[in-house]
């Protein structure tokens, strides 16, 4: 008798234990998924935030060596200043940091502490302050990428010298400059404003932000009206027949087609058959709007379906035509849902990369595009491009670009949630 009771208790304990274990597995799985969200974000943020400031080095520039009287700059036009030969003058200003250096090799090393556009930076300073230039001006010059990374602590200093891009003597110069208080950080505005560059310290996301904006604008202009009209037709007017069934099957299938196939469509039809210009936000936008249309149509149809039939019937009962009932009463009520769907579709389009690679939006573009017909990159493509580059400086820039991309996506999704909360009617 006691044996059987013990057996029962044992088996019950076993079952309860396995229940406990199962619960732990479930919690483990969920924590695993949550942990990766955290790891991903921490990883990106910890390597990306440092791209938002940059290292600059103070240099005293003796303008008196360039010209006898600094007031003469006031009368010069921008063109005149562009024609001034300033290269050796700028170099001498930098040599002024270490007047004792004699050897040519060391001087070259010193120059390499700075970004290659140091002459340009001095010229820009001159242009914007030409009316009140003193005999000697203190200018903050952009440090080269290697110095920037060393200063931010991203670059291992204890490697062998021949494995390092930055040499011992440069480190010596750099430490001395730090001791003299000439090295400082400033907000990295050029990173937000400029286009791409082969030099990491000069590369910016401005071009790709504008490219992304143009692309999204094209997507909005094309897919919003087309998507909403198509949804209205299918939900409100379409007779139940083979054609409309076929359209519906098509829309559902398109939602499941891998994005790269849309890139092949863009390449085969839009570029090669219609001959639209390669690498442009216009073509990118067309391809991405074909891709986002199913999302918009499906969301709009769902919100049209949620409008109760009494609204339609009420309008029809007071003499409205079918079109009037739909356009004046049903569609306005369904608009918040359609907008939410559109914003989510746009967010998808903003993060999409693969189709853009195929239509050539991977070109190296230095200029910030002015119109949707200029060649340009987009934010996700910029991430791809920079992640392929070997220089250390691009790692933080890539992460920073991802941070901005994620920022835009979060804003768009927040907007979608807010629109839904604020304007959606509950029946």
């Amino acid at each position, binding site marked *: 008798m006691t044996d059987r009771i013990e057996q029962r208790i044992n088996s019950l304990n076993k079952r309860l234990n396995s229940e406990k274990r*199962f619960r732990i597995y479930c919690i483990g799985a969920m924590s695993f998924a949550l942990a*990766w969200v955290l790891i991903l974000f921490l990883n990106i943020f910890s390597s990306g935030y440092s791209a938002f400031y940059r290292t600059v080095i103070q240099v005293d520039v003796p303008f008196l060596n360039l010209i006898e009287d600094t007031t003469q700059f006031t009368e010069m036009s921008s063109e005149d200043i562009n024609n001034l030969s300033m290269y050796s003058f700028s170099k001498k200003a930098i040599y002024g940091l270490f007047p004792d250096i004699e050897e040519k090799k060391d001087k070259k090393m010193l120059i390499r502490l700075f970004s290659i556009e140091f002459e340009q930076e001095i010229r820009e300073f001159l242009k914007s302050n030409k009316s009140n230039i003193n005999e000697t001006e203190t200018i903050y010059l952009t440090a080269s990428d290697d110095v920037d990374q060393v200063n931010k602590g991203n670059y291992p200093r204890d490697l062998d010298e021949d494995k390092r891009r930055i040499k011992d003597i440069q480190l010596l110069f750099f430490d001395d400059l730090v001791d003299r208080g000439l090295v400082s950080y400033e907000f990295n505005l050029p990173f937000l404003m400029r286009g791409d560059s082969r030099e990491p310290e000069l590369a910016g996301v401005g071009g790709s932000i504008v490219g992304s904006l143009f692309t999204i604008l094209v997507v909005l202009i094309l897919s919003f009206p087309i998507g909403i009209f*198509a949804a*209205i037709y299918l939900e409100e007017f379409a007779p139940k027949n083979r054609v409309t069934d076929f359209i519906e099957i098509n829309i559902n299938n398109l939602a499941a087609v891998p994005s790269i196939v849309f890139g*092949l469509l863009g390449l085969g039809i839009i570029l090669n058959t219609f001959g639209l210009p390669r690498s442009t936000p216009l073509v990118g936008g067309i391809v991405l709007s074909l891709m986002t249309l199913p999302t918009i149509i499906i969301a709009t149809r769902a919100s049209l379906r949620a409008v109760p039939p009494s609204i339609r019937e009420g309008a029809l009962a007071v003499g409205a035509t079918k079109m009037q009932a739909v356009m004046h009463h049903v569609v306005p009520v369904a608009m918040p849902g359609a907008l939410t769907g559109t914003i989510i579709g746009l967010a998808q389009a903003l993060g999409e990369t693969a189709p853009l690679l195929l239509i050539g939006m991977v070109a190296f573009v230095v200029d910030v595009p002015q119109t949707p017909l200029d060649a340009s990159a987009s934010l996700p493509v910029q991430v791809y491009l920079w*992640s392929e580059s070997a220089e250390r400086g691009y790692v933080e820039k890539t992460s920073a670009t991802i941070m901005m991309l994620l920022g835009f996506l979060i804003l768009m999704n927040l907007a979608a949630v807010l629109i839904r909360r604020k304007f959606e009617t509950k029946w």
Partner: protein
Amino acid sequence: MGFILISLMILIGIASYFLGNLRAKNLRTSNQKNLKSLSHYYGYYVALWAVVPALLILLMITSFKSFFIEQYVLSDFIALGSYTETELSLLFTQIENTALGIKLFDENTILINGAVNKLNYINKTSENLTYVTVLGLSGLLVLYSLFNINNKLNSRKIVEKFLLVLYFTCSLVAIMTTVGIIFSLLYETLRFFSQVPITDFLFGLNWSPQRVFVREAGDLDTRDLANAFGAVPLFAGTFLIALIAMCVSVPVGLLTAIYMSEYASPKVRDWAKPIIEILAGIPTVVYGFFAALTVAPLVRDIGQGAGLTVSSESALAAGFVMGIMIIPFISSLSDDVIKSVPQSLREGSYAMGATKRETIVKVLLPAALPGIVGSFLLAVSRAIGETMIVVMAAGLNAKLTANPLDAATTITTQIVVILIGDQEFDSPKTQSAFALGLTLFVVTLALNFIALQVVKKYTERYD
């Protein structure tokens, strides 16, 4: 030019709406006659006449203009008869560049100069002509439709008919997209298979299209073609990476779904579910960067610590990160399915004395199985079509391997590798990318179809 013309058209449209509206109101007050529609419908009616035909004409002009301009400019050269089609189009680009001020040639200067002058002349005239045609047509039609307004005209019907046709056309875009995809893929694929036998593509074991690239298209050896385009390594790599991804995402996704639907309190659910769904909203290029820069080196270091040789582009790293990306697809779909199992089944099971685990494993999962399998299939199709993670983190060279620590390449990776940057058309290398695209399209479509059928066919109805 396009921008100014479009803005003018918009202005004309707005103006003609007010004109039509005004005329309808005037008619109503002066004639004491009843018009058949409300006056603003007459406004829309006039505006449609003003804008729609003119826009269609503009569209036609812009799409055929370049062809006629080319014919006209090159007429002297065509008359010579000694140029081939491709030479002519090259010549035209050169003439265009010369017209823009880029000096390209020294020979044939008289003909070229003539052509450049012609080009400049025709560009100017065609622009003027476009303005005159489009604006003239629009103006005429405004007048016509204004005088057409009378008490017999039911403009509401016409406007509504137009809207209906417009809506229908918009819904056809989905069909046109599908047709476009199938057409562009099939066209290039068929041209590819006319050079490379389809069996070599489907069953060949060696993928190295770059070999074809280095030769001139003229002296291609057929044996070379056969050996260069065997897609089996790509299929195997795609399968391997998708398998690794599923090994990560299926257990995690399913257990997460079970926790969410059966164990979690509403409070935990409310914050955990959106956080996990963030994973689905992150652009894939971000995962690619994460895989290539963080996970792949980590996998390599761990592997080397254990004494294994791990490629820095291992299939394991790419597959693992892809698995993480897919977790939310499986978890949210399975969550919905498990939740939709009727409460009576749960209660029946509890009443028999079953523990929660026993209820879930023996009652709920079997009941929800079709939906869960459907979600797995959708996830597989997602994994196969995923591009950026594998382009950035998986190998670029095709190699037949089943070792997850080795570099493997996928269909999508090869499409990107072949088509990125400048590509020459008419080469089997470029066309092979379209053949791969067609394979991908067919496989993902089939998977989605099967997933839908599984859900439809095997789902039990409990009510």
